[in-house]
């Protein structure tokens, strides 16, 4: 019951979606359409699950006073304030009937003034770390590393005006050696070749794994036996 029914569900859903591609008429067309809508709806419950888990983890931290539990208050206050403002569409002109992200609404304010700078700056930090990591770790120790480094330098220079100014003096017959042209060529041909090999390899892996999941050979998504 604990594993048999989920395996049957996976088999039925997976097989019907594959058959829907090759047998367009009913009932497979309807199954394809309706299962897709069901999937989209279940995805929202995953967000609710995430929110519930957040409340559980941080609530637990506050209750047990472990770690940085004082900051868990910040998380939960931010969470509930945003949730209440958003769900009830509090503040701003349109109210419950209007758009949740309407101009002038409190939810839009939270997006512009709180979520945007926090999300953006978290990722902006990476610029500093990529420079630090490049200085510490990027060594041309082997032939392969040297090739990687050379390609990286050509791209870094070629995608800015520096590449143009460094090699614009080359005659027209050697224009293919200008750094921007080299950078474009690297992206269009060797990079495409390598990426394509990776894409084909991944595709074969995904196909094999999908088949194993549908046939019930791969069961790791069901978790451990309990």
């Amino acid at each position: 019951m604990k594993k048999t029914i989920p395996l049957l569900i996976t088999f039925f859903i997976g097989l019907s979606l594959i058959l829907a591609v090759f047998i367009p008429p009913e009932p497979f067309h309807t199954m394809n359409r309706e299962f897709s809508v069901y999937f989209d709806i279940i995805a929202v419950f995953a967000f609710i699950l995430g929110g519930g888990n957040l409340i559980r983890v941080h609530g637990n931290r506050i209750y047990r006073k472990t770690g940085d539990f004082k900051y868990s208050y910040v998380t939960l206050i931010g969470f509930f304030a945003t949730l209440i403002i958003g769900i009830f569409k509090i503040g701003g002109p349109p109210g419950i009937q209007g758009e949740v992200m309407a101009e002038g609404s409190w939810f839009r304010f939270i997006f512009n003034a709180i979520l945007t700078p926090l999300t953006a700056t978290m990722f902006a930090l990476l610029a500093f770390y990529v420079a630090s990591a490049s200085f510490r770790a990027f060594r041309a120790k082997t032939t392969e590393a040297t090739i990687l480094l050379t390609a990286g330098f050509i791209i870094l220079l070629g995608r800015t005006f520096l590449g143009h100014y460094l090699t614009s003096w080359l005659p027209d017959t050697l224009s293919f050696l200008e750094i921007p042209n080299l950078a474009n060529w690297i992206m269009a041909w060797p990079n495409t070749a390598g990426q394509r090999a990776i894409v084909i390899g991944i595709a074969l892996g995904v196909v094999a794994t999908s088949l194993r999941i549908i046939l019930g050979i791969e069961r790791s998504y069901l978790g451990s036996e309990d």
Partner: protein
Amino acid sequence: MSILDNLQNLDRRIIFLFIGLAVIVPLIFNLTFPEHPTPIVTAIFDFVESLPEGSVVLMPFDYDPSTAPELDPMATALMRHCLTRNLKVCTMALWPEGQGMANNIFTNVVEPEFPEKVYGIDYVNLGYKAGAQGLINTILLNMRSMYTADTRGTPVDDLPLMKKVITLRDFDLIMNFSAGKPGSKEWIQFAGDPGDIPIASGSTAVQAPLLYPYYPSQMVGMMGGLKGAAEYEAALIEAYPQFKEQTSIATQLMAPQAVAHFVIIIFVIIGNIIYFTERKKKRL
């Protein structure tokens, strides 16, 4: 301690300071340099130029504020291009934050610069729906399975623009702005290939190399990162000079980008000099 020893044990905060200065100083001086569009970007521009007036373009905003510096300039330039060419624009999002990004483009670009364009007739915001590639699969078959109303609550059947749009196949171009998964790859896999719909991509520089295998047979063209945005802006300004003042956000950022790249290259070279010097010392 020698200079090399000092450099080897360099506090990373010094590196952070150099990167910060490399970015801030050129921004203060506001230098700009001319951009030359590459074929992969020009392909999108030419395709949009070739669309007849009244064609419907879908713009999925599949990114969040973290990648807005790269993708907002692309979205802005494309929005200006499409509305100037009198194409109809329909926006949606596979990312929850994407709806907010689309709203900002409407508020800051469409409404002030194109007051003659009417919401519902010339442009529509369908908003975010959950489901990622499942959503694409759903709306490939029937848009109304998921989109019953736009973000304002107006039923889709009451929007004149949506009257002739029943499935994804009714769009003449899907111009996707993508920061990761779900994004351009999923649009190609679940809409472009099965539905034979032209897909163009504006993607972050992290994702751009991964999308090259799909060009040109599965993707019309691609703008990769800030450089791609700057190239599209250059193409737009050349064809429509009236946008010269406002359509140069990405172009203005290319000078600080170049300086920062140069600083990182110098750091890598210094790091390698240290490494080879140390190796030589150990061998002696």
